[in-house]
């Protein structure tokens, strides 16, 4: 059962930050609430105050420009990203990822920023955004700061946010030329959370050699992690099946997945190996033909 709380409805982001500064640990921000209400219902948290930013339309934006890339506002929903023609053109992997995220209903109401703030290592957006060198802009009454997403998760369900901060914007830089990012999660049902998820970004130079790569694993460790070992196998190499295999092996060795009722640690590592190999190859194939 959800515990009683005092409901606060700020009229602006500024007001929300002031409320947050006042109540700090005693409050939680709710926007889409698709994750928050579940854990409140399970009794895992019972905040004294709930600050509702769902109605802040000023924060509900999705913009792109060639210089700064993609900017996702605090209250922008998954569905907005999913249906954006611009995102489909510039960051198709984001649309692919969103199409398999939870359900349409959840995507209609839940937000990307909220998902990132929740910090579930099995979540879909984080690995993809990290693979694309994404970052979050955090706001508080003290000002703003930008934190790269691959530094945003210090521990299981923990973020680098202070108690008085919220994610005001999600930033995705413009993709360099000859870059592609691919993401896949392994699940039994189409839109389930993944037993593991792998996002790989590959950038090729003019000669077709891998110039840069990011290998990001979801649900394979207490937090979303990059596999630097896997990245090392890709960077500087002329990519082929043997290299992809090596990348898979490296990622499988570097991660620390749990054993639970859904899969053993061994099987999860096996999946990391297979999916890393596949995503690296898929990213490479798309990078080859991209501009």
């Amino acid at each position, binding site marked *: 059962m959800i515990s009683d709380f005092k409901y606060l409805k700020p009229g602006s982001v500024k007001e929300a930050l002031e409320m947050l500064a006042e109540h700090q640990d005693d409050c939680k921000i709710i926007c889409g*609430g698709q994750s928050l209400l*579940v854990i409140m219902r399970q009794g895992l948290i019972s905040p004294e105050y709930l600050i509702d930013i769902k109605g802040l339309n000023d924060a509900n934006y999705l913009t792109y420009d060639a210089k700064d890339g993609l900017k996702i506002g605090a209250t922008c929903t998954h569905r907005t990203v999913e249906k954006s023609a611009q995102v489909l053109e510039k960051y198709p992997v984001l649309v692919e990822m969103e199409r398999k995220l939870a*359900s349409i*209903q959840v995507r*209609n*109401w839940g937000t990307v920023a909220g998902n990132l703030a929740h910090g579930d290592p099995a979540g879909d957006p984080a690995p993809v955004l990290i693979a694309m060198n994404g970052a979050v802009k955090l706001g508080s009454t003290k000002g703003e700061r930008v934190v790269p997403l691959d530094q945003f998760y210090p521990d299981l369900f923990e973020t680098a946010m202070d108690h008085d901060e919220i994610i005001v914007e999600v930033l995705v830089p413009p993709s360099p030329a000859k870059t592609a990012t691919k993401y896949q999660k392994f699940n039994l049902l189409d839109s389930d959370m993944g037993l593991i998820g792998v996002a790989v970004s590959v950038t090729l130079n003019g000669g077709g050699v891998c110039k840069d790569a990011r290998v990001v694993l979801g649900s394979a460790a207490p937090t979303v992690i990059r596999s630097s070992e896997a990245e090392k196998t890709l960077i500087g190499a002329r990519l082929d099946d043997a290299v992809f295999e090596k990348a898979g092996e490296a990622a499988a060795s570097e991660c620390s997945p749990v054993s639970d009722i859904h899969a053993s640690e061994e099987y999860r590592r096996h999946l990391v190996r297979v999916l890393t190999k596949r995503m690296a190859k898929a990213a490479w194939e798309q990078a080859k033909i991209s501009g």
Partner: protein
Amino acid sequence: MEKRLITLNVNDQDYELYINPKTLLVEAIRDHIELTGTKRGCDTVSCGACTVMVDGMAVKGCSVLAVQAEGTKIVTAEGLETNGKLHPIQKAFLDEGAFQCGFCTSGMLMSAVAFLNETKNPTEKQIRDGIEGNICRCTGYNSIVRAIEAVAKGKYTEDKA
């Protein structure tokens, strides 16, 4: 804990509610407004039985606070018919037998309507993805997909009242 006075517009009618802010939208609809067509089937935002339309979007009423839905237009299964004339999707469900026990049906209808409003000429795969968020234990989904397909193809025209 302070109750809040809010107005919810459900099926084109305003309802004034005085509720605990933690009241979920599905609770407001079922227990306060007493429209019990919308159901609940889980506690983990999984089953979709509580699906309603908010400003044309399908959402799960179990993961939306009622207070957040103030100012929106909410439609439930009871709001699909017009003066006793069935919505095309309802006719299609009848024709295809796209329900059995009927418990998931209200939520399924709302997902279907929202989907049809957004997607013209859907493929079968798109339809299946469109109702992915709704569990049906009885039908095996194919009759539901047939019903949605029939509406999408224009088999039913809305009766002019």
